[in-house]
Protein backbone atom coordinates (compact mmCIF):
# COMPACT_ATOMS: atom_id res chain seq x y z
CA UNK A 1 0.00 0.00 0.00
CA UNK A 2 1.38 3.41 -0.99
CA UNK A 3 1.62 6.30 1.43
CA UNK A 4 -1.19 8.06 -0.43
CA UNK A 5 -3.44 5.00 -0.21
CA UNK A 6 -2.70 4.75 3.48
CA UNK A 7 -3.62 8.40 4.00
CA UNK A 8 -6.88 7.93 2.13
CA UNK A 9 -7.63 4.89 4.25
CA UNK A 10 -7.27 6.99 7.40
CA UNK A 11 -9.87 9.40 6.01
CA UNK A 12 -12.16 6.45 5.27
CA UNK A 13 -11.70 4.98 8.77
CA UNK A 14 -12.45 8.33 10.40
CA UNK A 15 -15.58 8.92 8.31
CA UNK A 16 -16.79 5.39 8.95
CA UNK A 17 -16.26 5.43 12.70
CA UNK A 18 -18.08 8.77 12.93
CA UNK A 19 -21.00 7.23 11.04
CA UNK A 20 -21.27 4.31 13.46
CA UNK A 21 -20.80 6.41 16.60
CA UNK A 22 -23.55 8.71 15.35
CA UNK A 23 -25.85 5.77 14.66
CA UNK A 24 -25.16 4.15 18.06
CA UNK A 25 -25.45 7.49 19.87
CA UNK A 26 -22.59 6.17 21.97
CA UNK A 27 -18.82 6.01 21.75
CA UNK A 28 -15.63 7.95 22.30
CA UNK A 29 -15.27 10.20 19.28
CA UNK A 30 -12.19 12.26 20.17
CA UNK A 31 -9.99 9.40 21.26
CA UNK A 32 -10.95 7.26 18.28
CA UNK A 33 -10.19 10.03 15.79
CA UNK A 34 -6.91 10.65 17.61
CA UNK A 35 -5.60 7.09 17.26
CA UNK A 36 -6.89 6.30 13.76
CA UNK A 37 -3.56 6.86 11.98
CA UNK A 38 -1.72 4.71 14.51
CA UNK A 39 -4.16 1.80 14.06
CA UNK A 40 -4.18 2.18 10.29
CA UNK A 41 -0.39 1.98 10.10
CA UNK A 42 -0.21 -0.87 12.60
CA UNK A 43 -2.74 -3.06 10.78
CA UNK A 44 -1.69 -2.16 7.25
CA UNK A 45 2.08 -1.77 7.55
CA UNK A 46 3.41 -3.26 10.77
CA UNK A 47 1.52 -6.13 12.40
CA UNK A 48 1.95 -9.69 11.24
CA UNK A 49 -1.68 -10.78 11.65
CA UNK A 50 -3.99 -12.64 9.29
CA UNK A 51 -7.79 -12.54 9.59
CA UNK A 52 -7.95 -16.08 8.18
CA UNK A 53 -5.37 -17.43 10.61
CA UNK A 54 -5.80 -15.20 13.63
CA UNK A 55 -4.89 -17.86 16.18
CA UNK A 56 -1.50 -18.53 14.60
CA UNK A 57 0.86 -18.71 17.61
CA UNK A 58 3.50 -16.76 15.70
CA UNK A 59 1.26 -13.73 15.07
CA UNK A 60 2.15 -10.35 16.48
CA UNK A 61 -0.01 -9.41 19.43
CA UNK A 62 -1.84 -6.09 19.59
CA UNK A 63 -3.57 -5.14 22.83
CA UNK A 64 -5.42 -1.83 22.93
CA UNK A 65 -4.96 -0.32 26.35
CA UNK A 66 -7.05 2.77 25.59
CA UNK A 67 -10.02 0.46 25.16
CA UNK A 68 -12.64 3.20 25.05
CA UNK A 69 -11.40 4.08 21.55
CA UNK A 70 -12.80 0.79 20.31
CA UNK A 71 -14.61 2.33 17.35
CA UNK A 72 -11.30 3.07 15.62
CA UNK A 73 -10.20 -0.51 16.33
CA UNK A 74 -13.45 -2.11 15.13
CA UNK A 75 -13.49 -0.12 11.87
CA UNK A 76 -9.80 -0.87 11.23
CA UNK A 77 -10.36 -4.60 11.91
CA UNK A 78 -13.42 -4.69 9.65
CA UNK A 79 -11.54 -2.89 6.89
CA UNK A 80 -8.70 -5.42 7.28
CA UNK A 81 -11.20 -8.25 6.74
CA UNK A 82 -11.72 -9.61 10.24
CA UNK A 83 -15.51 -9.23 9.99
CA UNK A 84 -18.02 -7.47 7.72
CA UNK A 85 -18.17 -3.72 8.21
CA UNK A 86 -21.97 -3.98 8.29
CA UNK A 87 -21.69 -5.82 11.64
CA UNK A 88 -21.03 -2.41 13.17
CA UNK A 89 -24.62 -1.42 12.49
CA UNK A 90 -25.32 -3.07 15.84
CA UNK A 91 -22.61 -1.18 17.75
CA UNK A 92 -23.55 -0.79 21.44
CA UNK A 93 -27.00 -2.31 20.94
CA UNK A 94 -28.75 -4.87 23.14
CA UNK A 95 -26.91 -8.24 23.26
CA UNK A 96 -24.36 -7.15 20.65
CA UNK A 97 -20.71 -8.23 20.87
CA UNK A 98 -19.75 -4.89 19.35
CA UNK A 99 -19.78 -3.07 22.66
CA UNK A 100 -18.09 0.10 23.83
CA UNK A 101 -14.78 -1.61 24.64
CA UNK A 102 -12.65 -4.34 23.02
CA UNK A 103 -13.88 -7.85 23.69
CA UNK A 104 -12.48 -11.17 22.52
CA UNK A 105 -15.96 -12.08 21.31
CA UNK A 106 -15.09 -9.92 18.29
CA UNK A 107 -12.83 -11.66 15.78
CA UNK A 108 -9.40 -10.05 15.76
CA UNK A 109 -9.45 -8.68 19.30
CA UNK A 110 -6.58 -10.12 21.31
CA UNK A 111 -7.65 -9.16 24.82
CA UNK A 112 -10.62 -7.71 26.72
CA UNK A 113 -9.70 -4.18 27.72
CA UNK A 114 -11.41 -1.03 28.89
CA UNK A 115 -10.14 -0.56 32.40
CA UNK A 116 -7.24 1.84 31.90
CA UNK A 117 -3.67 1.04 32.88
CA UNK A 118 -4.05 -2.66 32.10
CA UNK A 119 -2.80 -2.98 28.51
CA UNK A 120 0.89 -2.46 29.19
CA UNK A 121 1.06 -4.81 32.21
CA UNK A 122 -0.63 -7.55 30.15
CA UNK A 123 1.82 -6.93 27.32
CA UNK A 124 4.78 -7.19 29.69
CA UNK A 125 3.49 -10.65 30.63
CA UNK A 126 3.01 -11.56 26.96
CA UNK A 127 6.53 -10.33 26.13
CA UNK A 128 8.10 -12.32 28.97
CA UNK A 129 6.11 -15.39 27.84
CA UNK A 130 7.36 -14.96 24.26
CA UNK A 131 10.95 -14.79 25.52
CA UNK A 132 10.49 -17.92 27.66
CA UNK A 133 9.00 -19.74 24.66
CA UNK A 134 11.86 -18.47 22.44
CA UNK A 135 9.32 -16.97 20.02
CA UNK A 136 10.10 -14.06 17.72
CA UNK A 137 6.68 -12.44 17.50
CA UNK A 138 6.27 -8.91 18.78
CA UNK A 139 3.83 -7.44 21.31
CA UNK A 140 2.26 -4.02 20.77
CA UNK A 141 0.07 -1.89 22.96
CA UNK A 142 -1.58 1.46 22.28
CA UNK A 143 -1.88 3.65 25.34
CA UNK A 144 -3.49 7.03 25.84
CA UNK A 145 -1.50 9.72 27.60
CA UNK A 146 -4.61 10.31 29.70
CA UNK A 147 -4.19 6.83 31.24
CA UNK A 148 -0.61 7.46 32.35
CA UNK A 149 -1.71 8.49 35.87
CA UNK A 150 -2.68 4.84 36.43
CA UNK A 151 0.16 3.57 38.63
CA UNK A 152 0.12 0.11 37.07
CA UNK A 153 1.71 1.60 33.92
CA UNK A 154 4.78 2.66 35.84
CA UNK A 155 5.18 -0.73 37.50
CA UNK A 156 4.99 -2.22 34.02
CA UNK A 157 7.58 0.21 32.59
CA UNK A 158 9.88 -0.77 35.44
CA UNK A 159 9.38 -4.48 34.72
CA UNK A 160 9.81 -4.00 30.95
CA UNK A 161 13.19 -2.38 31.48
CA UNK A 162 14.22 -4.92 34.10
CA UNK A 163 13.47 -7.87 31.83
CA UNK A 164 14.97 -6.11 28.78
CA UNK A 165 11.85 -6.72 26.71
CA UNK A 166 13.01 -5.68 23.25
CA UNK A 167 9.98 -7.51 21.78
CA UNK A 168 7.57 -5.06 23.43
CA UNK A 169 6.33 -1.88 21.72
CA UNK A 170 4.34 0.60 23.81
CA UNK A 171 2.83 3.31 21.61
CA UNK A 172 1.56 6.44 23.29
CA UNK A 173 -1.24 8.42 21.63
CA UNK A 174 0.08 11.71 22.95
CA UNK A 175 -2.87 14.03 22.31
CA UNK A 176 -2.54 15.83 25.66
CA UNK A 177 -6.26 15.49 26.40
CA UNK A 178 -8.38 13.35 28.67
CA UNK A 179 -12.07 13.24 29.35
CA UNK A 180 -12.26 15.99 31.94
CA UNK A 181 -9.72 18.39 30.44
CA UNK A 182 -6.13 18.77 29.32
CA UNK A 183 -3.49 16.58 30.89
CA UNK A 184 -1.79 19.67 32.25
CA UNK A 185 -4.96 20.53 34.16
CA UNK A 186 -5.91 17.02 35.28
CA UNK A 187 -2.56 15.26 35.76
CA UNK A 188 0.52 16.63 34.12
CA UNK A 189 2.25 14.17 31.78
CA UNK A 190 4.86 16.58 30.43
CA UNK A 191 8.41 15.32 29.82
CA UNK A 192 7.13 11.79 29.33
CA UNK A 193 10.06 11.01 27.02
CA UNK A 194 12.55 11.94 29.74
CA UNK A 195 10.61 9.95 32.30
CA UNK A 196 10.57 6.80 30.17
CA UNK A 197 14.26 7.11 29.22
CA UNK A 198 15.07 7.31 32.91
CA UNK A 199 13.55 3.84 33.35
CA UNK A 200 16.28 2.45 31.08
Amino acid at each position, binding site marked *: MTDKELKLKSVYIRKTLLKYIYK*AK*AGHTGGSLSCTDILNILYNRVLNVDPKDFKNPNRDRYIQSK*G*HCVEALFVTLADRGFFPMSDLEEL*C*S*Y*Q*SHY*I*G*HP*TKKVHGVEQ*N*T*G*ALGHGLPICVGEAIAAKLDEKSHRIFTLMGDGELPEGSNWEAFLAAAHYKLDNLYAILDYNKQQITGSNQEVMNTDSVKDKLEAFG
Partner: protein
Amino acid sequence: MKNDVCYSDNPVKLVAISAGVSYGALGTTHHSLHDFAALRAINNITIVAPADNFETEQAVKAAIAHEKPLYLRFGKKDMPYLGDSDKTFAFGKGRIVREGTDLAIIANGETVYPAWLAAKKLEEVLGIQTTVVSMHTIKPLDTELLEQLAKNGRPIITVEEHMVYGGLGEACASHLFQKGYHNPFKIMAIPDEYTVTGSQGEIFNHYGISKEGIYEVAKNLLKN
Protein backbone atom coordinates in the same frame (compact mmCIF):
# COMPACT_ATOMS: atom_id res chain seq x y z
CA MET B 1 -10.13 0.02 51.67
CA LYS B 2 -9.31 -2.84 54.01
CA ASN B 3 -5.97 -1.61 55.29
CA ASP B 4 -5.91 2.15 54.94
CA VAL B 5 -9.55 2.93 55.65
CA CYS B 6 -11.42 0.22 57.57
CA TYR B 7 -8.61 -1.40 59.56
CA SER B 8 -7.13 2.04 60.29
CA ASP B 9 -10.62 3.37 61.10
CA ASN B 10 -10.19 6.49 59.00
CA PRO B 11 -13.44 8.40 58.34
CA VAL B 12 -13.13 8.07 54.56
CA LYS B 13 -16.31 8.35 52.50
CA LEU B 14 -15.94 6.47 49.25
CA VAL B 15 -18.58 7.66 46.77
CA ALA B 16 -19.30 5.47 43.75
CA ILE B 17 -21.04 6.96 40.72
CA SER B 18 -22.62 5.19 37.73
CA ALA B 19 -22.72 1.94 39.70
CA GLY B 20 -24.15 -1.37 38.55
CA VAL B 21 -24.93 -1.40 34.85
CA SER B 22 -25.38 2.35 34.47
CA TYR B 23 -22.83 2.10 31.65
CA GLY B 24 -24.53 -0.97 30.24
CA ALA B 25 -23.48 -0.65 26.61
CA LEU B 26 -19.81 -0.17 27.48
CA GLY B 27 -19.46 -3.79 28.52
CA THR B 28 -18.22 -5.81 31.45
CA THR B 29 -15.19 -3.62 32.21
CA HIS B 30 -17.66 -0.86 32.98
CA HIS B 31 -20.21 -2.90 34.94
CA SER B 32 -19.82 -2.54 38.68
CA LEU B 33 -21.74 -5.47 40.13
CA HIS B 34 -19.39 -6.81 42.78
CA ASP B 35 -18.96 -3.91 45.16
CA PHE B 36 -21.42 -5.07 47.83
CA ALA B 37 -19.82 -8.51 47.97
CA ALA B 38 -16.26 -7.23 48.13
CA LEU B 39 -16.97 -4.53 50.71
CA ARG B 40 -19.36 -6.52 52.87
CA ALA B 41 -16.49 -8.87 53.64
CA ILE B 42 -14.53 -6.05 55.25
CA ASN B 43 -15.07 -5.21 58.88
CA ASN B 44 -15.92 -1.66 60.02
CA ILE B 45 -17.67 -0.22 56.98
CA THR B 46 -21.15 1.15 56.33
CA ILE B 47 -22.51 0.43 52.84
CA VAL B 48 -25.35 2.56 51.47
CA ALA B 49 -27.26 2.62 48.16
CA PRO B 50 -30.04 5.26 48.13
CA ALA B 51 -33.22 4.72 46.11
CA ASP B 52 -34.56 8.22 45.44
CA ASN B 53 -33.80 11.91 45.83
CA PHE B 54 -34.96 11.95 49.45
CA GLU B 55 -32.63 9.12 50.48
CA THR B 56 -29.78 10.59 48.44
CA GLU B 57 -30.02 13.95 50.16
CA GLN B 58 -30.33 12.34 53.57
CA ALA B 59 -27.46 9.94 52.90
CA VAL B 60 -25.11 12.73 51.82
CA LYS B 61 -25.95 14.75 54.93
CA ALA B 62 -25.55 11.71 57.16
CA ALA B 63 -22.27 10.81 55.44
CA ILE B 64 -20.83 14.22 56.29
CA ALA B 65 -21.67 13.68 59.95
CA HIS B 66 -20.53 10.04 59.96
CA GLU B 67 -17.08 9.67 61.45
CA LYS B 68 -16.45 6.11 60.29
CA PRO B 69 -15.59 4.41 56.96
CA LEU B 70 -18.51 4.63 54.54
CA TYR B 71 -19.33 3.53 51.01
CA LEU B 72 -22.05 5.45 49.19
CA ARG B 73 -23.30 4.00 45.91
CA PHE B 74 -25.04 6.14 43.31
CA GLY B 75 -26.38 5.33 39.88
CA LYS B 76 -26.32 7.61 36.86
CA LYS B 77 -29.82 8.39 35.68
CA ASP B 78 -32.37 10.68 37.33
CA MET B 79 -33.74 9.33 40.59
CA PRO B 80 -37.36 8.11 40.61
CA TYR B 81 -40.25 9.44 42.69
CA LEU B 82 -41.53 6.85 45.15
CA GLY B 83 -44.80 8.55 45.91
CA ASP B 84 -45.71 9.83 49.32
CA SER B 85 -43.40 7.40 51.10
CA ASP B 86 -42.11 7.48 54.65
CA LYS B 87 -39.70 10.36 55.17
CA THR B 88 -37.44 9.07 57.89
CA PHE B 89 -33.88 8.11 57.24
CA ALA B 90 -31.00 6.72 59.24
CA PHE B 91 -28.07 4.51 58.26
CA GLY B 92 -28.83 0.93 59.23
CA LYS B 93 -32.61 1.41 59.23
CA GLY B 94 -34.62 0.13 56.27
CA ARG B 95 -37.26 2.50 54.90
CA ILE B 96 -40.72 1.11 54.30
CA VAL B 97 -42.03 2.69 51.09
CA ARG B 98 -45.22 0.62 50.92
CA GLU B 99 -47.01 -1.62 53.43
CA GLY B 100 -48.89 -4.89 53.04
CA THR B 101 -49.09 -8.23 54.81
CA ASP B 102 -49.11 -10.78 51.95
CA LEU B 103 -45.58 -10.37 50.62
CA ALA B 104 -42.38 -8.42 51.26
CA ILE B 105 -40.01 -7.06 48.63
CA ILE B 106 -36.68 -5.82 49.90
CA ALA B 107 -34.65 -3.83 47.38
CA ASN B 108 -32.01 -1.13 47.31
CA GLY B 109 -30.67 1.57 45.01
CA GLU B 110 -32.22 1.77 41.58
CA THR B 111 -34.16 -1.48 41.97
CA VAL B 112 -36.52 -0.08 44.60
CA TYR B 113 -38.53 1.73 41.94
CA PRO B 114 -39.40 -1.35 39.82
CA ALA B 115 -40.14 -3.21 43.07
CA TRP B 116 -42.51 -0.44 44.09
CA LEU B 117 -44.21 -0.49 40.66
CA ALA B 118 -44.55 -4.29 40.84
CA ALA B 119 -46.16 -4.00 44.29
CA LYS B 120 -48.71 -1.54 42.91
CA LYS B 121 -49.52 -3.92 40.06
CA LEU B 122 -49.82 -6.87 42.46
CA GLU B 123 -52.48 -4.95 44.36
CA GLU B 124 -54.29 -3.68 41.26
CA VAL B 125 -54.38 -7.03 39.42
CA LEU B 126 -54.37 -9.67 42.17
CA GLY B 127 -55.31 -7.76 45.30
CA ILE B 128 -52.03 -8.75 46.91
CA GLN B 129 -50.78 -6.40 49.61
CA THR B 130 -47.02 -5.98 49.53
CA THR B 131 -44.55 -4.34 51.84
CA VAL B 132 -41.70 -2.77 49.91
CA VAL B 133 -38.56 -1.88 51.82
CA SER B 134 -35.74 0.28 50.58
CA MET B 135 -32.89 -1.45 52.41
CA HIS B 136 -30.56 1.42 51.54
CA THR B 137 -28.02 0.30 54.13
CA ILE B 138 -26.81 -3.17 53.27
CA LYS B 139 -24.26 -3.11 56.09
CA PRO B 140 -25.08 -2.93 58.92
CA LEU B 141 -28.29 -4.67 57.87
CA ASP B 142 -31.55 -3.75 59.59
CA THR B 143 -32.02 -7.22 61.08
CA GLU B 144 -34.80 -6.05 63.39
CA LEU B 145 -36.95 -4.98 60.43
CA LEU B 146 -35.99 -8.13 58.54
CA GLU B 147 -37.26 -10.35 61.34
CA GLN B 148 -40.46 -8.30 61.65
CA LEU B 149 -41.10 -8.88 57.94
CA ALA B 150 -40.43 -12.61 58.23
CA LYS B 151 -42.52 -13.23 61.35
CA ASN B 152 -45.90 -13.88 59.67
CA GLY B 153 -44.30 -16.37 57.25
CA ARG B 154 -44.99 -14.34 54.10
CA PRO B 155 -42.84 -14.83 51.03
CA ILE B 156 -39.85 -12.50 50.71
CA ILE B 157 -38.23 -11.29 47.49
CA THR B 158 -35.00 -9.35 47.38
CA VAL B 159 -34.02 -7.24 44.37
CA GLU B 160 -30.65 -5.65 43.66
CA GLU B 161 -28.44 -4.31 40.88
CA HIS B 162 -25.58 -6.63 41.82
CA MET B 163 -24.38 -10.15 41.23
CA VAL B 164 -26.53 -12.80 42.89
CA TYR B 165 -23.60 -13.67 45.15
CA GLY B 166 -22.62 -11.63 48.15
CA GLY B 167 -25.17 -8.84 47.96
CA LEU B 168 -28.43 -7.80 49.60
CA GLY B 169 -30.25 -11.07 48.94
CA GLU B 170 -27.60 -13.29 50.47
CA ALA B 171 -27.23 -10.93 53.42
CA CYS B 172 -30.97 -11.16 54.15
CA ALA B 173 -31.16 -14.92 53.55
CA SER B 174 -28.16 -15.62 55.72
CA HIS B 175 -29.56 -13.70 58.66
CA LEU B 176 -33.08 -15.13 58.44
CA PHE B 177 -31.95 -18.73 58.00
CA GLN B 178 -29.61 -18.50 60.97
CA LYS B 179 -32.45 -17.09 63.05
CA GLY B 180 -34.67 -20.03 62.13
CA TYR B 181 -36.96 -18.38 59.57
CA HIS B 182 -37.89 -20.42 56.52
CA ASN B 183 -40.09 -18.08 54.50
CA PRO B 184 -40.43 -18.71 50.76
CA PHE B 185 -37.50 -16.66 49.49
CA LYS B 186 -36.27 -15.48 46.11
CA ILE B 187 -33.16 -13.44 45.29
CA MET B 188 -33.50 -11.34 42.14
CA ALA B 189 -30.12 -10.13 40.94
CA ILE B 190 -27.66 -10.51 38.07
CA PRO B 191 -26.90 -14.22 37.63
CA ASP B 192 -23.42 -15.72 37.68
CA GLU B 193 -22.52 -14.91 34.09
CA TYR B 194 -20.93 -12.09 32.11
CA THR B 195 -23.79 -9.68 31.77
CA VAL B 196 -25.45 -9.03 28.43
CA THR B 197 -24.83 -5.58 27.05
CA GLY B 198 -27.38 -2.91 26.32
CA SER B 199 -28.77 0.06 28.17
CA GLN B 200 -29.38 -0.23 31.91
CA GLY B 201 -33.12 -0.65 31.21
CA GLU B 202 -32.48 -3.39 28.64
CA ILE B 203 -30.22 -5.27 31.05
CA PHE B 204 -32.76 -4.92 33.87
CA ASN B 205 -35.50 -6.27 31.61
CA HIS B 206 -33.27 -9.10 30.40
CA TYR B 207 -32.80 -10.36 33.96
CA GLY B 208 -36.34 -9.63 35.12
CA ILE B 209 -35.40 -6.69 37.32
CA SER B 210 -38.44 -4.80 36.15
CA LYS B 211 -42.05 -4.15 37.14
CA GLU B 212 -43.21 -7.11 35.02
CA GLY B 213 -40.35 -9.42 36.02
CA ILE B 214 -40.80 -8.85 39.76
CA TYR B 215 -44.59 -9.16 39.38
CA GLU B 216 -44.21 -12.58 37.71
CA VAL B 217 -41.75 -13.84 40.33
CA ALA B 218 -44.07 -12.66 43.11
CA LYS B 219 -47.08 -14.32 41.51
CA ASN B 220 -45.24 -17.65 41.21
CA LEU B 221 -43.81 -17.45 44.71
CA LEU B 222 -47.28 -16.87 46.16
CA LYS B 223 -48.69 -19.85 44.24
CA ASN B 224 -46.28 -22.33 45.85
